[in-house]
């Protein structure tokens, strides 16, 4: 009597670089309310369990879980925080439903990153405190505000140690990873830039995106190196937004007037947190995909998957993830971006929503934004960016710098 797990409702806010007019509670309320209306259920009666995906330091509370229940409808109901991307939340909701004890589970993830003023310092706070973090700069609290502007004169000798005044931005790690990717696959910076162009273009057809733009590969190439070879436009900008999914077992779904989308499989995996011994080939995505394909009974991912949303927080990550997920052979992704395979009308439409580069980096909601796009595509509600005959879709997310963890979810039309 194995149960199937269906997506019965989705809700989301618009994604905006700032949301000064609403509180973190209200942004969550909006996404949740829309998801419950979409599912046609009464949250206070019908939802058995709630999961929020959040990390304390993004939000500004020592225990963010405290500030969750009211606005997701979880008063006096089972509710918890999963400290991870939204896809980890979906995975846990899936398992809760599969136990047979809970029928309807709501998963919420959001970004209210505009509340955070010291983003770089918080990301640095995720590095190993003994061997990695102190390399970035002084252990004493730096005096911000008065950082001198960088000039193009020949720089002075670079000395670490006690005379340092500033901490290096943690995205330097993306520079290291991108260098590794370019070297091992022979991909060029232009090919990575083409990802930026494609995703920002796709975002024009997505009503909730925030960073759509019409630019050329040259524009990307001309943007400044911040962490060579990572350029300013290779980095997805931060965005606020919330997404909520309602999942249910197939029996419950039958009683609702809904064409369900099945959560057919999920996978997640963590690599070592030590940069010291971590491979830089996105092994987390490879293993997560393997688990998800097995669960969803997918044997030939490249042929069977009709639409993919993969993590593109940095442009090269999209190509790296496609290869790690087995959607491209090792070293093949660079061709796929050049020959149009990844376009909306290509044979492997990727990041049709605009991805993180077009919608914005929505932190723990990144995977949920991607899952949202897949469900929208499978429902056939994607408007001008609709992929024809989409039956099976894949959403993938990575937990961002400096982690080596990621998750994959596979959705199928009923």
């Amino acid at each position, binding site marked *: 009597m194995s149960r199937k797990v269906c997506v019965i409702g989705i809700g989301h806010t618009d994604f905006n670089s700032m949301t000064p007019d609403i509180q973190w509670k209200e942004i969550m309320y909006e996404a949740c309310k829309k998801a419950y209306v979409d599912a046609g259920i009464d949250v206070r009666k019908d939802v058995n369990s709630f999961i929020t995906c959040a990390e304390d330091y993004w939000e500004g509370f020592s225990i963010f879980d405290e500030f969750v229940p009211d606005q997701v409808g979880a008063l006096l109901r089972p509710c918890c925080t999963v400290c991870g991307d939204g896809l980890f939340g979906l995975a846990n909701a899936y398992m809760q439903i599969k136990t047979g004890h809970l029928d309807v589970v709501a998963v919420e993830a959001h970004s209210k990153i505009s509340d955070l003023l010291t983003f770089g310092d918080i990301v640095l706070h995720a590095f190993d405190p003994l061997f990695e973090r102190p390399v970035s700069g002084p252990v004493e609290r730096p005096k911000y505000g008065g950082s001198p502007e960088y000039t193009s004169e020949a720089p002075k000798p670079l000395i670490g140690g006690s005379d340092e*005044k500033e901490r290096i931005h943690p995205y330097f790690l993306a520079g290291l990873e991108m260098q590794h990717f370019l070297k091992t696959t022979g991909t060029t910076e232009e090919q990575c830039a083409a990802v930026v162009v494609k995703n920002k273009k796709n975002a024009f057809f997505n009503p909730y995106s925030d960073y759509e733009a019409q630019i050329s590969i040259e524009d990307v190439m001309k943007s400044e190196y911040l962490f060579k070879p990572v350029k300013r436009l290779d980095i997805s900008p931060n965005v606020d937004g919330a997404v909520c999914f309602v999942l249910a077992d197939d029996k419950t779904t039958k009683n609702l007037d809904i064409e369900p989308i099945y959560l057919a499989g999920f996978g997640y995996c963590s690599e070592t947190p030590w940069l*010291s011994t971590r491979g830089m080939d996105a092994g987390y995505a490879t293993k997560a995909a393997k688990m998800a394909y097995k669960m969803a009974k997918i044997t030939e991912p490249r042929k069977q998957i009709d639409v993919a949303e993969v993590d593109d927080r940095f442009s090269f990550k999209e190509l790296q993830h496609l290869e790690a997920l087995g959607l491209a052979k090792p070293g093949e992704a660079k061709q796929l971006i050049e020959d149009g395979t990844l376009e909306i009308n290509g044979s492997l439409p990727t990041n049709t929503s605009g991805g993180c580069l077009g919608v914005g980096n929505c932190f723990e909601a990144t995977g949920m934004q991607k899952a949202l796009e897949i469900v929208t595509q499978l429902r056939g509600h994607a408007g001008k960016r609709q992929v024809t005959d989409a039956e099976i879709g894949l959403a993938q997310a990575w937990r961002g710098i400096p982690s080596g963890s990621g998750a994959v979810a596979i959705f199928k039309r009923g």
Partner: protein
Amino acid sequence: MGSLEKQTDPTSPMHWRGDMQADYFYPSGVAGDKFFKHMMRSDTFLASKCTICNKVYCPPRLYCEDCFEEIPDNNWKEVPPIGAVRLFTVAKLNAHGKKLANPKIIALIDIDGTDSAMLGIIASNDINKDITGVKVKAVFKPKDKREGTIKDILYFEEI
């Protein structure tokens, strides 16, 4: 947004400032304490080697992350503070998103005689040079100034 009233007056209060400031004290751990104490006395690193898979860790570990077995004391060894640059980047932004006064080269350095890399700042006058594969050596603080942290390494420089 599902609620019946919204902010329409841009002059009304919009934000509330606050923080999560606290200071942190990280004991070095069993393996880290040995490593740092050794580095306070001598200009070399300590590494630990898994008895099962023979992987050599530097910075050393109490246990092997793959085999999940404790590494006994007699499987520790000294290694020279020398390695080859595996990956590097030139960082131009500080943690606040502003330009660094001086861009810094930060690299992942494969430490000789180990299966591990260390993160380090590379001292160089030429930020445009490709230093992949270049051999570098750690430059330490004077012994009397060492405190038993990774900051006792000032930077790495080309040999």
